[in-house]
């Protein structure tokens, strides 16, 4: 056990047993004696409203045994609130609590209550800093590169401290490790949107915004070139064009960039784009490129027929599992 449990410190406490009050134990569980003892004492302390050091230690034990026991985290927060007020040095007290939390975090990578607890601590911390948060965030993402809660917490942190200086680079380091990491790509979009929003007061002028957006387009193209069949990089590119270029998928030759991955599909006749002929159609490097071009062209009246061809190819060969969707797009355009 992580924390030493000295039951003699709680000898005055009569444990409150776990009881569902049911005869047929629909919801009973096989508890170990240690668990029963510790939980029994914890329940009594909660019911007595005790917010002491020994109560704090006890919650450490419970969390060690049962890290998802949500109510105990709530209780611990109440204890921390009470103790920090009388500690004489709130900052030091909370830093010690964060140290404890770091260790619990590393031992319980799948636990998501930890992150909302951490957020609550930071919100009462008189002198919180992003710098202090970065190491544990990096370690946790290193271990589980798509951990939803850690990425969410990271976003909350950078917004709270309004400090995006590390974020593009951080996202890039994860994309370098795994170009398919959708969490990293999402993070990149989050950063881009925040930096280019009108709310950003960090002396961002229009020129700087434009340069950043252009850079991100090149970044996406570069990663697509490395790995063309990657939904995350294509989504990122589309997201930028949707937001900053009014959904125009032909600006700056982007459609030509995408077309290099779709092997003259547009030169095929209607008669060649059938299921029976699908084995004669070429293998493509990227079905996402085909969809990208199709979507872009679907918005341009004199390119409608090319879009239909592209959707048809997707339906019969390049992404047949989603033929319901592709047929919908074809119907819409044919109307």
């Amino acid at each position, binding site marked *: 056990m992580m924390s030493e449990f000295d039951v003699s410190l709680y000898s005055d406490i009569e444990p409150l047993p776990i009881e569902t009050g049911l005869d047929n134990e629909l919801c009973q569980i096989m508890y170990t004696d240690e668990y029963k003892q510790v939980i029994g004492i914890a329940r009594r302390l909660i019911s007595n409203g005790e917010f002491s050091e020994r109560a704090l230690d006890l919650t450490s034990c419970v969390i060690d045994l049962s890290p*998802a026991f949500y109510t105990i985290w709530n209780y611990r927060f109440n204890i921390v609130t009470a103790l920090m007020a009388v500690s004489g040095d709130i900052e030091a007290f909370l830093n010690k609590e964060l140290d404890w939390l770091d260790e619990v975090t590393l031992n319980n990578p799948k636990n998501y209550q930890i992150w909302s607890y951490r957020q609550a601590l930071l919100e009462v911390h008189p002198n919180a800093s992003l710098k202090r948060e970065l190491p544990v965030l990096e370690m946790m993402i290193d271990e589980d590169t798509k951990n939803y809660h850690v990425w969410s917490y990271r976003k909350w942190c950078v917004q709270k401290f309004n400090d995006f200086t590390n974020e593009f680079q951080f996202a890039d380091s994860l994309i370098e490790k795994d170009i398919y990491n959708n*969490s990293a790509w999402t993070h990149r979009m989050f950063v881009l*949107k925040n930096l280019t929003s009108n709310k950003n007061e960090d002396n961002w002028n229009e020129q700087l915004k434009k340069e950043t957006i252009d850079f991100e387009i090149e970044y996406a193209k570069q990663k697509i070139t490395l790995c063309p069949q990657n939904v995350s990089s294509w989504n990122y590119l*589309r997201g930028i064009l949707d937001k900053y270029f009014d959904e125009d998928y032909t600006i700056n030759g982007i459609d030509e960039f995408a077309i290099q991955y779709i092997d003259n599909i547009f030169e095929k006749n209607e008669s060649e784009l059938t299921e029976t002929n699908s084995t004669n159609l070429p293998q493509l490097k990227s079905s996402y490129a085909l969809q990208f071009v199709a979507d872009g062209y679907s918005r341009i009246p004199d390119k409608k027929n090319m879009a239909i061809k592209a959707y048809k190819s997707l339906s019969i060969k390049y992404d047949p599992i989603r033929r319901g969707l592709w047929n*919908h797009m074809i119907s819409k355009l044919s109307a």
Partner: protein
Amino acid sequence: MPSELKLHKEKHIQYIDSLDKKQSDFEYWLSEHLRLNGVYWGLTALSLLNAKDTFKREDVIKFVLSCFDDQYGGFAPFPKHDGHLLSTLSGLQILATYNSLDALTVIRREKCIKFIKGNQLPDGSFQGDRFGEVDTRFSYNALSSLSILGELSSDVVDPAVDFILKCYNFDGGFGSCPGAESHSAQVFTCLGALAIVNKLDRLSDHQIEEIGWWLCERQLPEGGLNGRPSKLPDVCYSWWVLSSLAVIKKLDWINYEKLRNFILQSQDEVKGGISDRPDNEVDVFHTVFGLAGLSLMGFDDLVPIDPAYCMPCSVTKEFKVYPY
């Protein structure tokens, strides 16, 4: 190679029934913090299999009521735990499924409503409890709970919808809060919530198309659905993704046969139950969502399920439709 795949209904009923008989599987879903949710999953699965009476109704209702948090209002996942929106919804869903919402006293009903509404924040979002965690899951829990109680109102709904829409992402999905990564479960909670309060028209046709694309892109070549791009398929997404598609009326964008095969291959033919993917350990969570997915697709003669509420249609058709 398995013989022709079939749904082993009797085995699944036996599996769920065995969960209350102190088997070692037990601690799997019966950790206290999930207890009430677990009962809801089990009961819903049995309902889909037309075997609701496998659980003893009176015992379950008694247990649900023992989970009520009289101090703060709402249901806790287990007696003497803190009330939370997650377990509050489960408690209400179980009572509604048993047509026993009147088992709640007037005072408790009022406390429950107060608890739910009291957790709404100024930006329209909901925290799970006074501890402060915000997530669109809690928006869904709150709106569905109030809907079951027939207590929706525009002062709650309108800001809630505004917040949900802020969670719509560049790729067509929804996240747990604005800017968070799109995730199938969050898409379900956002769309389900909008459906329950009849505000799907806040989404444009174009957005609906994007959402539909994001959802059907979850289907992998073998037929299973994943929760996010480039992740492994998991049977529970048969529910989150499928119900979302059902809500926006694009169910046919998924290949049914392949998904059905994936779900059926994830069964344990010996002891019953369904797991997250073939050859893994089963649990009641994946059992209910696998069955729910099959029901939505109309397979295997299962009881019809409401995609927005994840409860039998026979129950949800009694709910008051908002706006009242």
